[in-house]
């Protein structure tokens, strides 16, 4: 089980902000550091109180050129907020977002206009992302015109080329969103995201609303685009199977914090964080001999309004220790390119340097 660790022993005492080496070639395309966002909400009756929901709590990660980073986690863990904060669709409270060396948070309106061409998003539900009264040609062509990339007939040509690239006939341009099936609408959503020639696409649950056979078609299409256009993706999903298939690296979130991050094969073969382990063992597998373990384990994910002290996962964790209730574990590098936020892997019990051993022992 320690395949990910045995080949390279963890570095002695990594600094709190230690990040993985990344690709050796160049600086990362997207660099997110300490991203924090608290939503304030007035709730309650008859006397409303202001409650603060910490949606993001010091989230840091990198995305390399033409790499797909998966962000997984359950409802309310903040994975969609990451995308929105990186795109400046909402303003984060703290932290930095650098895209290709440019500070996204500090970008002037004109710089932001340039950034919008290179940073795009694909939403989960293409039906609600498309204007029902707008023809497909306008839905895709609008941004091309607004950004002055083409005019007149050239827009039509560009739209036809984009439709072809996502596997739709050029006749689709004259039609309205309701004339398409869910999978076709998601292709339109993708064509629209591609219209300005982005370098990085945030895909927020892009296949979650689709049937299995259509989901596979869209995943294959996205993979083709990643290779052909050298696109990078931040792929947000609750489905571990989809992330394992599509992404090269994965980050696991729990109540606003990253709890584990690393290369897809390592994390899926040998998850370290107890939450990652729970996610993996709860994911249904189509094989009755290795079917998902159905424990009557109690424990709901706590509310983000009032998260538990210390490590947010401690009330559900089978390996909980005293310090977990008081101190939030930092996200530390345990082996090259692999980070975990768990006291099991920094605690004295892990003095041997092999954190996986600690979990194995605890079991």
């Amino acid at each position, binding site marked *: 089980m320690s395949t990910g660790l045995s080949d390279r022993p963890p570095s002695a005492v990594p600094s709190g902000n230690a990040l993985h080496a990344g690709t050796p070639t160049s600086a990362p395309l997207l660099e997110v550091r300490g991203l924090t966002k608290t939503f304030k909400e007035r709730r309650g009756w008859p006397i409303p109180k202001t409650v603060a929901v910490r949606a993001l709590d010091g989230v840091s990660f990198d995305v390399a050129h033409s790499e797909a980073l998966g962000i997984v986690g359950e*409802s309310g863990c903040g994975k969609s907020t990451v995308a929105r904060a990186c795109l400046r669709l909402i303003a984060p409270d703290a932290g930095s977002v650098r895209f290709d060396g440019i500070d996204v948070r500090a970008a002037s309106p004109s710089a932001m206009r340039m950034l919008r061409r290179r940073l795009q998003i694909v939403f989960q539900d293409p039906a609600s992302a498309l204007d029902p009264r707008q023809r497909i040609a306008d839905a895709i062509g609008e941004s091309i015109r607004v950004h002055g990339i083409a005019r007149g007939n050239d827009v039509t040509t560009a739209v036809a080329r984009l439709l072809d690239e996502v596997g739709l006939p050029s006749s689709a341009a004259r039609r309205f969103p309701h004339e398409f099936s869910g999978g076709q609408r998601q292709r339109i959503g993708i064509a629209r995201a591609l219209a300005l020639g982005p370098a990085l696409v945030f895909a927020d649950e892009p296949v979650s609303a689709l049937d*299995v056979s*259509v*989901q596979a*078609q869209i995943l294959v299409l996205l993979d083709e685009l990643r290779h052909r256009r050298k696109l990078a993706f931040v792929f947000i999903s609750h489905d571990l199977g989809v992330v*394992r*298939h599509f992404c090269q690296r994965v980050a696991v979130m729990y109540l606003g914090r990253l709890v584990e991050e690393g290369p897809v094969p390592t994390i899926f073969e040998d998850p370290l964080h107890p939450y990652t382990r729970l996610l993996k063992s709860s994911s*249904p597998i*189509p094989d009755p001999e290795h079917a998902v*373990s159905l424990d009557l384990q109690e424990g709901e994910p706590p509310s983000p309004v009032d998260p538990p002290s210390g490590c947010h996962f401690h009330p559900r964790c089978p390996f909980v220790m005293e310090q977990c209730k008081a101190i939030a574990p930092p996200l530390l590098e345990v082996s090259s390119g692999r980070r975990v936020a768990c006291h099991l892997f920094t605690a004295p019990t892990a003095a041997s340097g092999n954190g996986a051993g600690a979990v194995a022992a605890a079991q």
Partner: protein
Amino acid sequence: MSATAATDALPNAVASAEKPALIVDGLTTSIRIDRQWFDAVRDVSFAIHPRETLALVGESGCGKSLTALSVMGLLPAGVGRISSGRITVDGTDMTAASAAAAQAMRGDRIGMIFQEPMTSLNPVLPIGFQIAESLVQHRGMSARQARQRALELMELVRIPAAAQRLDAYPHQFSGGMRQRVMIAIALACSPKVLIADEPTTALDVTIQAQVLALLADLQRREGLAVLLITHNLGVVAAVADRVIVMYGGDVVESAPVNEFFRRPTHPYSEALLAAMPRVDRSAAALAPIPGQVPTLPDLPAGCRFQSRCPHRIERCAELPPLMPLAAMPAHGVRCWVRAP
């Protein structure tokens, strides 16, 4: 739920001593599109014994939910109707029963849970009242008795601090807890049959595992026959005893669960499994099924999967029957190529 899956030598061998709790025989359900009636479910037959789980699997529009609605008698009037076939619940023929008798059976001997608990619960009524409602309705209990039983039911579905939450409203519960409330409502009158239509699809995976475990536990204790409607083959592998795969309203494959996953035989079943990205395997190439499910009026005559099938032969223009495999009579496949 799959404790008895080893005895899959015979169809429904799980509890052969007992009578099936639910028998669906030759069910054909039609729906109306633009003043024309189309068969959206064709000749579906199955039986479920107490303590047995049958999973109906397929993609949107395959007829799995329509089959469940037919069994529950909840087809929208004027748009859907049962054209032929018989549905027997706990020995009573539902299709022959009067509307009032059928109404009395629903909620009493058939319990139902749906995908999105928030849309099934009344937001302005307390949870305890909503659980007690069917007990007053079907069992003639007094309000006080029903409230006591509602508390027991909330404890049965493991809602923590049940006594304090009897008077709570649906919005004060999380998604997983709401689904537990739905299960409590479904089980209020101790039904024989539980119909669960995508009961965990809207839930997070860790909560899904809890709710499935709870259902399995209740099924054992209450001796329920469960009809599980799902699109998730992983859920099927975890809880079902038998699987029926539907495509375009037809049953294309029917098999005991272990046999199905060992030997998926219909080209559509095979394709579904190959199109599913798996958490337990490293990135193998996905094989998407080309095209999409044709709409009801456009479905081809004969085998309805032929327009997307890589193994199509001329004979597919004619509808194949559901034929048992020679080696495994409990395993039926509707395909000229795979089960000649």
